[in-house]
């Protein structure tokens, strides 16, 4: 059973950063709501009413969260950010080779480099993903994919 005398581990920095980000977000909405969009008009709430009220609420509660001591169970590790880097790389490849090939390459690269899967399985999953996305989004739904350099060259 824990008591207040037990030493507490410091709160992870990102928890304070999240509260600070919420505080800034709320303050931004409050400021714009009151000073730019108009809090109250002659016959009721103005366009800034909701942003101001809920921006103020967010700011106050986030400030409370910042000052409050508290522990959390979860931890952020470097490994959690790998999909972000991989996705950024894939999205940046879209203007070069097109969306479907870029995402197929992402699947292949992920399975091979991150998960260390065998070549056959990696190629198979990438190919199935490419075929299914082509069938559903390109051929059936006729989604207009962003133009790519590869399209122009071909």
């Amino acid at each position: 059973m824990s008591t207040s005398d037990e030493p507490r581990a410091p709160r992870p920095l990102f928890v304070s950063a999240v509260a600070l980000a919420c505080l800034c977000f709320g303050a931004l909405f409050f400021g714009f709501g009151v000073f730019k969009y108009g809090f109250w008009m002659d016959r009721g709430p103005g366009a800034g009413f909701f942003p101001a009220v809920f921006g103020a609420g967010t700011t106050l509660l986030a400030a409370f969260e910042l000052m409050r001591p508290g522990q959390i169970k979860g931890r952020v590790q470097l490994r959690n950010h790998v999909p972000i880097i991989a996705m950024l790389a894939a999205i940046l490849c879209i203007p070069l080779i097109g969306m479907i090939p870029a995402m197929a390459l992402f699947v292949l690269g992920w399975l091979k480099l991150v998960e260390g899967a065998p070549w056959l399985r990696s190629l198979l999953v990438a190919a199935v993903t490419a075929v299914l996305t082509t069938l559903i989004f390109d051929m059936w739904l006729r989604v207009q994919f962003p133009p790519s350099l590869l399209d122009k060259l071909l």
Partner: protein
Amino acid sequence: MDTLIALQNGFATSLSLGNLSAALIGAALGIIVGAIPGLGSVTGIALLLPLTFGMDPTTAVILLAALYYGCMFGGAYSAILLNIPGDAPAVMTALDGYPMAKRGEGGQALFAANLASFIGGTVGIIALSFMGPLLAEIGLMFGPPETAALILLALCSIGWMLGDNVAKGLIATMLGILLAVVGIGSTFGHARFTGGSMHLLNGVSFIPLVIGMFGFSQLLEMMTDRPKQGEGPKQIPLRESIPGRKQVARLVPLSLRSGLIGTFVGILPGAGATTGAFLSYVFQRKIGRNGDQMGTGVVEGVAASEAGNNGAAAGSFAPLLSLGIPGSGTSAVLLGGLMMWGLQPGPLLFTTRPDFVWGLISSMYIGTVMAVIAAMLIIPFLMQILRIPISVLIPVIATVCVFGAYSVNGSMFDVWLMLTVGIAAYYLKVAEYPIAPLVLAFVLTPRLESSIRRSFDISNGDPWIFLSSPISVTLISVICALVVMGVAGAVASRVRVRTART
């Protein structure tokens, strides 16, 4: 008696081979469209609308109604299996469905979702058949002040979802409200918080937001919170996943109740299936069995949400057919379709085109049966998804996230939005901020803001309009009672904790 005869004639129309085929095709397509994150029933119907122009109006609307039903069934699948709600109403289904799938009980969740969808939908259709015009009249009694009070009630009910840390829950709810005010919106007519970007003029797109919040943030979590090879939860086999007599007996009453709540919410113009699913879920949590465990992965949560949204889907046809007022985004697209075929929905439609109205209503019975048959047949294939190793699922889900976010508006901006929201949601989740209140507040806020604004316009700025009708007085009394009970409960628990410490 007249209704029964009319319904019988309707069945004579809808049971023709062509119309039956249309219902089956619509249901199957709907399940597929509903299960693809980023599409949903509005997009599905909008995509298929041009294909029906060559058809007989009755056949076309039968196909579209079955598609709508299929979408409601399919929306639950990606929510349960991948934690990516196919559309907004399925957000509530994901709360319990995905934890069940993670425990190896995905099959049970899918069967419960289908059973509850069927029951909720049938309740809605029966109500529509016998009380369609009456339901529409009740819906009309909800003007802007009553609608505002109802949505406020829904927002106050989010309280139970706030988790252990009420401040963090409230911050999440308010973040949802703030995100919802971005863009021009229909209330004030000028752009707010767009930063000069034309992509934000229509506001933050819901689908990229929900895909990022639930889908992409889940991927980041999976990187560290995944079972090692061979240590994952044991999947319950298909045969054991089929609900037994006891489970069916447990699910039927709650599905009937949730279906009724959903139907009632569905008839209110603009309230939609999301509000229906949400209020059914909240009601079940308050009064139902396992209520305190809902949100952790119990079958009651899946059933309440699914029955509620299918009831609302049927209910939204009442104001559409009887008054020509769409009750949801999907029925607004259907209204467009009806008008293109030269049909004018409204009180006269029941007398001028009874063949069409009763053909449609009877086809909804058939559409639901078709959808449940197709849905049950598809479960064995869906359960195979649960056997795919997480190492393969991660890149595949990432691909689904990108395509789902892009296909809504065909814009790379939405892909970046999904990615940004996903990263933000991941940090919020790890810092123990609940995500579901944010999404629900985002969905409910535009309607709340416009209802409040319109109420003030009607009353010339007099706030007493919110207490001018028995409906709004009742709803506001319930809101006050909820707030007082919530505050009293919090104070009492704090006093108990302090007493225990001393």
